[in-house]
């Protein structure tokens, strides 16, 4: 009798641990998805602003060309190439911002101000997303999670090699 109770208790404990771990992983997957969605939308917005800047009188024709090309590339890149494409856009925007003293009109400055605010947000969003991805990858490597296939059919999140000092 004693053994039965002990066994039942142990079984409940193991079952609890497994459901707990599964919901823990589920939450992490959810976090990766939302943080990517946020980051993605911010990056899309940045590409849109870059195009707007390229079309405005702020930039010279050569910079415009560079900005337009890199913004289009960043928008159309698939998941694996996304981070390198975004880095190229960051570089182009950085070059443009380096000469910002020559910009005088109010509407142009408002545009650049918007870009700067967006950049701050992107930095935070990157930090949040990278953290979520590494956490998830770390946990999915653990034995319990692999043994009981707690990840189900969810794909392993991809690491994005964003440079920490993007822009």
């Amino acid at each position, binding site marked *: 009798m004693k053994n039965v109770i002990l066994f039942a208790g142990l079984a409940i404990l193991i079952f609890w641990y497994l459901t707990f771990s599964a919901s823990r992983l589920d939450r992490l997957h959810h976090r990766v998805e939302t*943080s990517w969605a946020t980051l993605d939308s911010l990056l899309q917005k940045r590409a849109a602003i870059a195009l707007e800047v390229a079309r405005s009188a702020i930039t010279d024709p050569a910079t415009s060309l560079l900005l337009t090309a890199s913004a289009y590339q960043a928008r159309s890149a698939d998941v694996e190439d996304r981070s390198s494409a975004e880095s190229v856009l960051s570089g182009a925007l950085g070059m443009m911002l380096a000469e910002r003293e020559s910009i005088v009109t109010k509407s142009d400055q408002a545009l650049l101000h918007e870009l700067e605010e967006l950049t701050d947000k992107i930095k*935070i969003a990157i*930090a*949040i997303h990278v953290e979520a991805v590494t956490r998830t990858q770390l946990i999915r490597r653990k034995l319990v999670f692999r043994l009981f296939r707690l990840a189900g059919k969810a794909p392993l999140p991809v690491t994005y090699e964003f440079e920490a000092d993007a822009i």
Partner: protein
Amino acid sequence: MIDRTLRIGIVCPYSWDVPGGVQNHIRDLAEFLINNGHYVEVLAPATESEDLPDYVVSAGRAVSIPYNGAVARVLFGVGANSRVRSWINDGDFDLLHLHEPAIPSLSLLACWAGEGAMVGTFHAAAKYQKAIVAIGPILEPVIEKLSARIAVSESARLTLTAHLETDAIVIPNGIYADNYRDGVSRTEWQGNTIGFLGRFEEDRKGLPVLLDALPIISRFIPDIRVLIAGPGDSEEVLEKVDPQLRNRVEFLGKISEIDKADFLASVSLYIAPNTGGESFGIILAEAMAGGAAVVASDIPAFADVLGNGQFGALFESENSENLAKVIIDLLRDETKRRELAAAGAVHAQRFDWGQVGVEIFEVYELAMVSGQKVSLTSENRSWTRLLGRD
């Protein structure tokens, strides 16, 4: 930018009854958010009294436990846990901001119980400790529920990565820089004066280190005066000072915020000889904002605030001779002192709530993207119902 009124719940791990860096930070943050039109509740251990600001909700009286080499006044246990749960349940919050969720107190309980947009702020900067690594596996599933992590300094961030393998965004603690900008230099505090502010009876504030340096300093600068502001028993401290030097030390008692601004504007040097246990050097940021040239011990928290010596001079912690040397050098070189003070005054703007508050709010916005309210976590719910605890 979100412009609707948010309901924000902040959890303070330490007793609201005693002053401290974390508590002050939370108070200023809560007031910043309220001034920006949001609804804020702070859950903290506190004795029920009429002095509590109306945004503070007491979770019960704190207990003192030794933690990390100091006595921490925290709160946990079955009663506290159920209070945290009902606070989250009834609060209808858009976001929870948990301070120090890695120490055994209310924030950890809230992080365990909550589900949704949660931001954690880590204040402590500690040396690598096996004990914290050992409890890592217990903390991990809790800490990873946070949507975003903030560390108040680079050293707090490194502490976090070393112990819990998780990264954080660095946003410093805030000050109201404007409060210190308009200090008036008073003649009675001018001259070769060095200032010290704080509860000087506590050894970790480092007054003994400064007083040990006094004999050396007075040999080179005979008209040196040490001005000490803060609550405490001055007699006891004076007994340890060489009788011939006692007239070089003056106690001002506890001073008001306005006096503090004047104090910082008047003294030639502001000294922070703290020997450790600081989560952040907020007083250094205030001193810089007040236009003082700052000399501080090179503990990690202080080195961070002073940009590793760019915005204030550092000396080897607990080394009185080194402190004396730094003080003498600076008192003899007025140009250098002024340059240091000027650089510090500019740098202090970095810590102004105008900037710090906006940065914290940006993190809130990104943590809240799912748009769901904070609720009690679902994974425990079925189990607690099964066990008849809900």
